[in-house]
């Protein structure tokens, strides 16, 4: 298994190289003027402004030279400057990532627990009221656009009830961070709050997370519920489950010990991909709730043709995808002993 892991990790640099060449090749289709618009969003008010900007940022050089220069920078550990984030790309990744990871982890918990639990519940009670209710619930979740659901949540629970504000943290916590009375160890406020022993900050952070977490996880619940349900149904029809029942085992033992574990094989694959998907797919949720995560930054960068930010984000995604898939494979082997990774 170790050899398998090492082999997969060794493939990573080649994959990333290919991805960056691809991104640069796509950007080479854009004219220097088009890419200069990142630095010039209004009518140029001096005659030579456009040309000066193109020259200053090296946009008039052939794309392979730009790529080579960028590659040299990378080797020196410099991913370039993100115009969108107004900071170096690497710093931007580090700055925005913890917020998204925090959001995704909080979202992952209800996704997996609720999604799997409801899926099993639905399968066990097939064609009964609870099953129909769950299926409608899943259908609604799957059909409801995230931005509509998010906005509804925002308008009701924030604008009217003022329970759960948008953003990441309240202004008074920001003050404490600035004044140094609250230390950010992990850049994830809920964890940092516990490390600082500050339940007030923990609660404040949680209040800001509740709406984005629900918005983000509802769609994923629906998806996981359906996958779990169908997998579980298939497993419940297996002969060994019938044998277990025939042996007179309690229904809870049959479900939890014999059926559920095998039904979890496709669910585990799905769960791993879900986490990757959550990290990537938080754009709308982060935008609606003004949550300063990596998704919002990357989307903004792509819209503004901020090539260095886009490439930086792509690299991050590549690593995430490879490592994520590796974890899923390992999980797969753990759940199903028949699987051997070689």
């Amino acid at each position, binding site marked *: 298994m170790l050899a398998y892991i090492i082999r997969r990790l060794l493939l990573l640099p080649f994959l990333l190289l290919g991805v960056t060449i691809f991104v640069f090749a796509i950007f080479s289709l854009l004219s220097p003027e088009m890419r200069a*618009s990142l630095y*010039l969003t209004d009518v140029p008010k001096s005659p030579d*402004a*456009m040309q*000066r900007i193109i020259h200053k940022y090296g946009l008039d050089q052939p794309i392979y030279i730009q790529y080579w220069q960028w590659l040299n920078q990378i080797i020196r550990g410099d991913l370039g400057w993100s115009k969108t984030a*107004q900071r170096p790309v690497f710093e931007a990744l580090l700055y925005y990532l913890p917020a998204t990871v925090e959001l995704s982890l909080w979202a992952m918990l209800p996704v997996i627990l609720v999604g799997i639990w409801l899926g099993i519940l639905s399968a066990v009670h097939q064609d009964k009221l609870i099953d129909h209710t769950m299926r409608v619930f899943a259908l609604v979740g799957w059909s409801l*656009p995230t931005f509509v659901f998010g906005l509804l949540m*925002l308008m009701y629970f924030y604008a*009217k009830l003022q329970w759960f504000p948008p953003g990441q943290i309240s202004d008074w916590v920001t003050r404490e961070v600035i004044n140094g009375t609250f230390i950010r160890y992990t850049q994830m406020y809920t964890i940092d709050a516990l490390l600082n022993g500050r339940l007030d900050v923990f609660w404040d952070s949680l209040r800001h997370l509740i709406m984005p977490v629900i918005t983000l996880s509802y769609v994923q619940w629906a998806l996981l519920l359906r996958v779990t349900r169908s997998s579980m149904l298939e497993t419940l029809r297996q002969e060994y489950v019938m044998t277990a029942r025939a042996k007179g085992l309690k229904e809870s033992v049959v479900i939890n010990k014999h059926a559920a574990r095998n039904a979890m094989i496709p669910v585990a694959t799905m769960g791993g991909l879900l986490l990757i998907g959550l990290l990537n797919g938080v754009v709308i949720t982060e935008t609606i709730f003004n949550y300063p995560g990596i998704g919002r930054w990357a989307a903004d960068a792509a819209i503004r043709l901020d090539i260095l930010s886009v490439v930086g984000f792509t690299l991050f995604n590549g690593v995430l995808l490879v490592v994520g898939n590796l974890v899923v494979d390992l999980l797969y082997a753990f759940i199903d002993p028949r699987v051997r990774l070689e």
Partner: protein
Amino acid sequence: MKAVWRWGALALSLVLVLGVTSGLAQQVKNPDTYIEAVIGDLETLDPAWHYDTASATAIFNIYETLVFYDGEAIDKFVPMLAESWTVSPDGSTYTFKIRKGVKFHQGGDLTPEDVAYSFQRALLQDRSGGPIHMIIEHVLDVASIDELAKKVGDAQACQQVLNAIRVTGPDTVEIKLASPFGPFLQILAGSWTSIIDKEWAIARGDWDGKCDNWRKWWDPKAEDSKLFDVANGTGPYKLVKWDKGKELILERNDAYWGGLAKRPAIIKNYIRKVVPEWGTRLAMFEAGDADSIDVPRPFVAAMEPLVKAGKARMHGPLPGSVMQSAFINFKVKEGSAYMPKLGGADKPDLLLDLNLRRALNYCFDTATYIKESWLGEAKPINGVIIEGRLGYNPEQKGYEFSLAKCEEELKAAWGGKLWSDGMRLVLTFNQGNIARRFAAEMLERNLEEMNKKRAGRPIFSVDVLDLPWPTYLKAMDAGELAVFWVGWLEDYAHPHNWVHPYMFRTGSFAIGQNFDALKDVEFKPVYATFLEAKKYPTLQDLFDDLVVKAKKEPDQKKGGRAEKIYFELNRLAVEYAINIQNIQLQVRRYEQVWVKGWFYNPAYPGTYVYWLSKG
């Protein structure tokens, strides 16, 4: 997809505003903090680098200029960091007496050296696409410091800057212009001439004040400026933190020298939060967590129920500083992909014909355009100078919408050839601009309507084409577009900032209009009768001459000689139909009812928190 999202958001917000807002308590939230929820973040905190309103808003709350606008006035100035000033009789030398007892936020004393350094640094930095060209144009009579350096060498160029702006006494600084420029104080009131602490800047690694290696600091990238994300001004607020992409936090400068109202600011903290999504900003406003928010025009309807219910205050519609215009190119560049045709053959100078240009104006239904595209919140401007500025002439007549007159002019165009042989014309605008699309499509419909007025096959072919913004700018600058829509946001509240882009040879739009194509132009003054009637080689020469004359005219008062020259320029713009009906946009501001003290000065880039209080 984006549009669906936006419209969905609008519909939802309308429903929710109507349904959800009842019963909100009107209590003042965060009484000592002013919070704005805005669409975009700043670009920089370097006064000489910034050229966007978001940065300017931050900078003019932190830094100060020599002079400032007198209340709501845009053409009257009061001393700020200059205690007083004098102008030499020939109008080319300004001497400022620098205020004493003023301290920078980090403790340094304001000195005349700081003032001279701030200007010199700005001129030598002169970043591409930045604001400093406005000062360089008048101080050094070139477009950029690089242009001057290429002419006279680096050392000499720097020396010229140091000679033009210098400390002349223990408390005085002198600025020498290359030639008189009446509205120079307008430029000095802009945040790009904010005064910085020389010692602090040098200590941070900025320009060392010497001429031997100024190029090291010339034209930096935003992030390479040593003052990119730090600030040390003399203003009513000081920087606490700029959390890029998230928020800017300022706090009151309790050691403030007093400013315009001879007191420190009332509001203790100013937080400018970046909230790109409209629905979120609206929710923040409703929850009372934002004292004012950016409200794009398509969403103003969502604010109306709040205003009617007494839960929000609306200022406006107020005359804005933006004009939307369609520009006519007298001779399209050879080889252009947007080449006009006359009778099926390429005709680069199709629009050189005055009748055709007039026809375009008569065929343009301005009232419908304003109603549909701008929700009725715009005003037609006959000429190139907006209302409220010197030189705006309310008596100036324009072209009223009339399909009959349009037909008449088309029949006369090119001696009748256009009516018999037809034409092809491409109307262009930048991708995604719905208002400009509406304008172009409306003109297209009305021109093609003319096909019905004549027997035979349709011969008037008008295409509407949207281009990506950078491609559009490039084609515009190269003179490749026949008719193009753009907007202009003024830099400073003076007509020179209008006639220059619209009519001067190197102006941002005139550069793509090729006025030189119209030869032997007779000028007979109507308003500026003190000017000589004469013939100019080209229309561009006439425009250039009048723009420069108006600029140099020392009498810049209402009813004075400069105003009369601007009247002439407006008249000529209409008579030669260089645009298709300009319109001045109006603006609104929405704030919580507890906000006190706000007033409208169109020259302010954003909220000047010093004037505000809550309660």
